[in-house]
């Protein structure tokens, strides 16, 4: 199905819709995103619930306008809306209709789900003296990697590969990528109740190596930029 056909199909399926006011992202609503002359309906970001705004008869209008905008990714939130049907309504993500895009964390969330067995490992899980992996470490590490995936998605509009997650005998946690073009290991461990990420990565033939450590609670740009090689 071509983009135009898909778009037309979406338009036909929309009986009425309002723009989604609460989608969380970081674009500046004071600039031209809320400019009616460019993007249509002004958005009430203070509302606590989805509110029906002026109806948008031609979804194609929005598509045409955002397609011309340089920051295509950041407008995705505007393409969520409410589809009203007799006696019911539902939240609808038009972006996914058009581009079959997934949540950037879908893949990583699957990896996390498969790795939750780690939380059930008991002391001595390696048949030696390995301590159990603390749930707080697991959660902080997964949240940290999620943040990097999201930041990369926002900046570059692609999703990096999901890592292998493995417990380590010293009670720390490894996230590793071993791809054809790049490899990286991020080891999360706690010091004084704060979790740090110790990382090493390089490209094929040891090119562009990166090494260091950062607190896990923030996203650091130099690491985020390098992780874009893990596409």
């Amino acid at each position, binding site marked *: 199905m071509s983009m135009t056909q898909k778009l037309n199909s979406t338009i036909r399926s929309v009986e009425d819709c309002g723009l989604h006011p609460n989608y969380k992202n970081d674009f500046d609503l004071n600039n031209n995103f809320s400019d009616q002359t460019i993007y249509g309906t002004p958005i009430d970001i203070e509302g606590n619930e989805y509110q029906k705004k002026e109806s948008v008869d031609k979804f194609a209008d929005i598509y045409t306008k955002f397609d011309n905008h340089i920051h295509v990714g950041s407008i995705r939130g505007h393409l969520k809306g409410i589809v009203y049907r007799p006696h019911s309504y539902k939240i609808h993500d038009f972006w996914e209709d058009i581009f079959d895009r997934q949540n950037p964390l879908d893949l990583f969330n699957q990896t996390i789900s498969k790795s939750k067995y780690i939380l059930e490992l008991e002391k*001595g*899980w390696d048949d030696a003296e390995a301590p159990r992996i603390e749930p707080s470490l697991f959660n902080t590490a997964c949240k940290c990697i999620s943040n990097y995936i999201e930041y990369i998605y926002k900046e570059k509009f692609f999703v990096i590969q999901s890592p292998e997650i*493995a*417990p380590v*005998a*010293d009670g720390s946690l490894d996230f590793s990528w*071993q791809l054809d073009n790049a490899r990286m290991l991020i080891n999360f461990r706690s010091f004084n109740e704060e979790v740090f990420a110790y990382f*090493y990565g390089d490209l094929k033939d040891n090119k562009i190596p990166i090494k260091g450590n950062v607190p896990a609670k923030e996203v650091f740009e130099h690491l985020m930029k390098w992780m874009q090689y893990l596409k």
Partner: protein
Amino acid sequence: MDVKLNGEFSDNCVLIRNSHKQYIKNAKPLPAAFSPDGGMSTDWDKYTTPEESLARIGLTTKINGELKNTDFFNLFGLKVGDIKMIEGVNSIDFTPIFHNPKIYGKPNNPSHSDVHYVDVELRLKFSEIAFPINVDRSAVSLIISQS
């Protein structure tokens, strides 16, 4: 890139590293399989066979006092020449273990060798130079039963 060798290790020598199944995915060792405990313990192939190496695992006790199950372990080899190419490896030390009298659950190991390195993240590279070692597990069982 100078690695201090405390022992007559040639580049073709193989250091045998045992890996618990928790560290193996798709028959390959994850970086976590090469985590150091002081040094990274290996067995030097000059002084042991793979079967003897795995049998020593089966003669070692867990923290609950039971002997380890060798079915949960695989062996991987690391060529000394490849290890020496990894920047950040400090030394390879021949450190045989002998208890006299013998201690139940802690078998003597005439081939024990340690690989010392500082940045634990470098184990990513170990996982890539490691190769699987086939083991005759019936021979392993025989060695354990005769010990």
